[in-house]
């Protein structure tokens, strides 16, 4: 396979995954900001949404204030933001078009259909209901793409590269949510159990579709350290860092096996997976949750770079 094709497949999946993630953050933020002020306190949820998306610099160049209108516009529709939902879908579609023959018909239909339908939303929804509908549509589009990839692609290097993109992006996204909200998850938080925290923890879980999963795993009320445990170390939780790395290692091993050689990307991924497997939550809290997550984000980016270096250029 040409490395250009692999690159397009990898990024196609990353963009679709990122679009879904942005929709999840916006959705969770919308819920949180809809609560009475007495519950959520004075913190600005919209600003933290921009932070979680990792583009606050670009945001504050364009806008003075982080409010619902500005943030929704910036993260969902802005053409000035190269990782808005619209930009993600556009780039995903242009990537897909250049590797049209490496995709199955269903995948192409899913991504092209999404792109065509995006136009229907014009410059963005004007009401909250419309915004919710839009965000749901984004998540469904991503599901359709992901599902058709899973159901129709041949299990060869094209599939593995595309999966790799999904999981590298997903690991990054989960880590970013944790990075912005980590202070809420610290065990020595003074106001543990207050309504503010309860809604915040629920919002974190909701943004990765883990609210029900949490109750299945722990059968307890929401406890911050358990939320952190679920999203970092639990391999059975599909968006946790551990589960993403299980999948990354598996797909890289498949690639290594198929090409008969392995290198820096495999080593980096296995190293990170080993670290996740050998860690316990107490140890992570002791050494600092924030440090752990920042380091993870850096290492995950290094993996992205190693994959690029080894396969994509």
């Amino acid at each position: 396979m040409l490395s250009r094709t692999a690159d397009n497949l990898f990024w196609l999946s990353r963009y679709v995954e990122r679009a879904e993630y942005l929709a999840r953050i916006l959705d969770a933020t919308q819920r949180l900001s809809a609560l009475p002020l007495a519950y959520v306190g004075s913190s600005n949820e919209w600003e933290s949404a921009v932070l979680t998306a990792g583009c606050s610099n670009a945001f504050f160049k364009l806008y003075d204030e982080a409010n619902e209108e500005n943030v929704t516009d910036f993260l969902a529709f802005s053409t000035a933001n190269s990782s808005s939902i619209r930009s993600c879908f556009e780039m995903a579609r242009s990537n897909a078009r250049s590797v049209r023959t490496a995709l199955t018909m269903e995948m192409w239909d899913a991504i092209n259909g999404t792109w065509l339908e995006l136009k229907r939303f014009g410059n963005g929804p004007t009401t909250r209901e419309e915004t919710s509908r839009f965000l749901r549509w984004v998540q469904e589009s991503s599901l359709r793409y992901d599902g058709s990839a899973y159901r129709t692609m041949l299990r060869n290097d094209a599939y593995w590269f595309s999966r790799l993109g999904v999981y590298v992006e997903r690991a990054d996204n989960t880590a970013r949510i944790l990075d912005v909200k980590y202070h809420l998850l610290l065990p020595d938080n003074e106001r543990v159990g207050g309504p503010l925290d309860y809604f915040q923890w629920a919002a974190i879980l909701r943004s990765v579709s883990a609210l029900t999963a949490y109750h299945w795993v722990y059968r307890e009320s929401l406890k911050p350290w358990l939320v952190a445990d679920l999203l970092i170390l639990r391999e059975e939780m599909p968006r946790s860092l551990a589960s993403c790395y299980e999948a990354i290692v598996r797909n890289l091993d498949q690639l290594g096996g198929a090409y008969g050689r392995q290198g820096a990307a495999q080593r980096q991924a296995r190293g990170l997976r080993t670290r996740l497997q050998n860690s316990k939550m107490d140890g992570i809290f002791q050494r600092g949750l924030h440090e752990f997550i920042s380091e993870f984000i850096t290492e995950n980016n290094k993996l992205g770079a190693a994959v690029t270096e080894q396969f994509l250029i």
Partner: protein
Amino acid sequence: MRIRVSHTTTYHYDTPPKGVTQLLRLTPRNHEGQYVLNWRVDLSEDCLLHQYEDAFGNVAHTFTADGPFDELKVAVEGEVDTSDTNGLVAGAVERFPPSMFLRDTDLTQADSAIAEFAAAARASAGDDTLSVLHALLTAVNEEITYDTDPTQTVTTAAQAFALKRGVCQDLAHIYIAAARGLGIPVRYVGGHLYRADGVIAQDAGHAWAEAYVEKLGWIGFDPANKLCATDAYVRVAIGLDYLGAAPVRGTRYGGSGETLKVAVQVDQSQWQSQS
């Protein structure tokens, strides 16, 4: 290096037992220099195989097989990717502070002969912990003759040292006894070795020691081969001594005339280049 390990323990009973309970420490874990590609545990009897993590962080399995049966076979098999880290073991599961591994056990109690021997090695090496450990490695290797005959699994370090003979397990025990006497934290490691001479079928697993050096961390020392652990080593379990890291421990109800056969095969898997 990609190493394929297959380790089969077969028990044969003249009179079938009513039941057998065993604890297995046969499953390796990942660290920076070692990655387990696949690994499976197979039993010849139908029973519940319960997996857990023991206090040292080893992966352990327990099971109780209901008899009667004439034969019980515990087979593990898998592939591990290793890389050479100059003996350094980083990123492994650490559940205790290093000073815990200064603790003496019955098997690793140093008698006056070992203490003298250790003091001599230290005197020749100076104050640096790392050179003391290397001096000790050479000294143990040269002092003790590798011999599978005279010792058993219950032979203590002091007994083996008096005999001047032993297998890798005894050499590791003597090394541990000597180094702990000098105040260096050391632990016992059970695992597998891909032999440089290409002998694939072995009678047992391998054993060596890991010592803790400030600022460096845990380092593998293999007194049987006078080497620091390389990429030919697959690290399976750690403990204070053999008993803590023993691959199989267990008990049986009823039955008699138990004979045990262990077959280990350590081979290099299909070659893969590292780019």
